[in-house]
């Protein structure tokens, strides 16, 4: 069953405006409540709720916030709305359906971490999101929810948007900071972590859209109420963006720990008639692929997917039926990482290039058996030795595809054609 906590009112168009947000929802009532609390109390509440980052890494949010230095130094709150992980489309919906939910969550979070300024970094292609969020920010200013001495408290907070310009790497938090600073979006070496030295060298908290929106509900209902959904280590609900070969693709909010099988076969209406499930990528294209038997026993929480050697990531579930060629899909994915590597680190720049070249050669029917081995070897050399996690994000899926679907790779090499797709198919993928 879906549990619509964040998405309760998403079906109603008026929810986008401040008026609708007040009428249908509970307006900015939670902000009023928060401003009467101590900032530290809110941080403790968020810790107690078990909320973990919804952007990909799943880091405990309250803990991240408590890494900020305890001096009066100015600090920034950045909302990561770059949403570039292939398969993910939830932040776009959240911004377009419920911009005030995000803004309220951000003001509360900004108060908790005592930040006077926040930015929402929105991916460049999301022009509608940008326009809608900008309008909502203006409404919030006019209503006194943003600006000086918000609602008579002595908390002052300003908020603005910033538009990216097309680069997946700007979703990585330090890449995003570089981009917001007006530079190319190259990640920076950590430590120092942004909480100590981030935007313009100042302490900075970066959180995903969904994480910041969830904070509102934790403050509204309390940590225990939030924990009613989910598991011990994966508390609350999560939005899953389901795409690929299901009958009803879309965003679904369910409690963490929800069976993947039910997500696919109940909520999403299953596969096309006559099709069989072959594989599922459970957390965006950076997450290692699950085979059908794995998918059938997986639950959608951080611990189960980690234990299966994959990850929850951004919550993008890509459902793959038996009409797909795994060599082809790996080719598409490796093209992406090669294209998006920022090029700073040799293992990533060279590795993503080699991975793509090697799998493209197999997918064009010119591969050799040792190329399959090579994919595995290149990948292993790309892991754990770069500035950011993009290198691992390319390597991990490659290893999983090659090892779990080796027989399809071997068939392609041996026969010079896909085990699954017909002859006409090669043309379409060639220039990719």
């Amino acid at each position, binding site marked *: 069953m879906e549990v619509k906590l964040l998405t309760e009112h998403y079906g109603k168009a008026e929810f986008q405006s401040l008026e609708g947000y007040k009428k249908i929802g509970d307006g900015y009532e939670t902000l009023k409540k928060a401003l009467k609390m101590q900032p530290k109390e809110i941080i403790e509440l968020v810790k107690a709720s078990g909320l973990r980052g919804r952007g990909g890494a799943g880091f405990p949010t309250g803990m991240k916030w408590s890494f900020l230095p305890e001096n009066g130094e100015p600090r920034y709150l950045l909302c990561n709305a770059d*949403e*570039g*992980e*292939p*398969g*993910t*489309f939830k*932040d*776009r919906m959240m911004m377009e359906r419920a911009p005030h939910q995000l803004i309220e969550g951000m003001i509360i979070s900004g108060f908790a971490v005592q930040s006077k*300024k926040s930015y929402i970094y929105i*991916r*460049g*292609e*999301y*022009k*509608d999101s940008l326009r809608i969020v900008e309008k909502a920010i203006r409404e919030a200013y006019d209503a006194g929810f943003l600006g000086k001495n918000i609602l008579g408290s002595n908390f002052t907070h300003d908020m*603005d948007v*910033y*538009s*990216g*310009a*097309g*680069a*997946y790497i700007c979703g990585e938090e330090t890449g995003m900071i570089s*981009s*917001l*600073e*007006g*530079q*190319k*979006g190259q990640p920076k070496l950590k430590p120092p972590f942004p909480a100590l030295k981030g*935007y*313009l060298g100042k302490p900075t908290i970066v959180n995903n859209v969904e994480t910041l929106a969830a904070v509102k509900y934790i403050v509204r209902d309390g940590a225990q109420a939030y924990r009613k959904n989910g598991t011990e280590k994966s508390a609350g609900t999560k939005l899953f*963006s*389901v*795409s*690929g*070969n299901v009958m009803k*693709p*879309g*965003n679904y909010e369910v409690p963490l720990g929800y069976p993947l099988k039910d997500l696919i076969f109940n909520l999403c209406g299953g596969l096309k008639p006559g099709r069989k499930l072959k594989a599922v*990528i459970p957390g965006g*294209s950076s997450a290692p692929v699950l085979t059908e038997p794995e998918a059938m026993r997986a639950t959608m929480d951080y611990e189960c997917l980690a234990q299966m050697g994959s990850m929850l990531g951004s919550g*993008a579930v*890509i459902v*793959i039926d038996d009409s*797909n060629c795994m060599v*082809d*899909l790996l080719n*598409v*994915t490796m093209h*992406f990482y090669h*294209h*998006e590597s*920022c090029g700073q680190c040799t293992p990533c720049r060279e590795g993503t290039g080699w991975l793509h070249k090697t799998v493209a050669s197999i997918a064009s029917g010119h591969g050799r058996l040792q190329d399959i081995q090579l994919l595995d070897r290149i990948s292993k050399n790309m892991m754990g030795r770069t500035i950011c996690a993009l290198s691992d994000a390319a390597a991990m899926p490659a290893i999983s595809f090659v090892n779990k679907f080796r027989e399809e790779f071997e068939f392609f090499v041996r026969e010079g054609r896909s085990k699954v797709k017909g002859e006409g198919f090669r*043309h*379409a*993928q060639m*220039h*990719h």
Partner: protein
Amino acid sequence: MFSLSEEGVAFVKRELNRYEDRRSAVIPALYRVQKENKGWVSPESVTYLSHLMDIPSAWIEEVLTFYTMFNKRPVGKYHVQVCCNISCSMNGGREMADHLCSTLKLKEDEVSGDGRYTISRVECLGACDKAPMMQVNDDYHEGLTNDKAVEILRGLK
């Protein structure tokens, strides 16, 4: 010589004061140039911006070349960007890109003879539930078929 309109100049000046650091105005300024320069950013417009903003042209160049949404070469009046990432590829995105190219008798990333179209393949645009899809200038067109996509392009003014 390239120059921005009066409103364009005013926009860039406002952006220079909008963020904590002036340098953050480079991306918005490049968007503006692209909008006023038929969809692309020419080398001379970088020099122009550098003077206008009092920011070294190397800094502007660095940003221009890093981000894919800035076109470094002329594009058609309608820049058609077809998503060919995983979920769209599983639902005919690549075939749709090919179909558009062959229907309009165009190669990828090329400007059509009448200056109307450029067709490019791009990465995931965050509309995977409505695959295949394409973006034409700023607008998303989702849940397409080959025929629908052609119809949309033909219908553009």
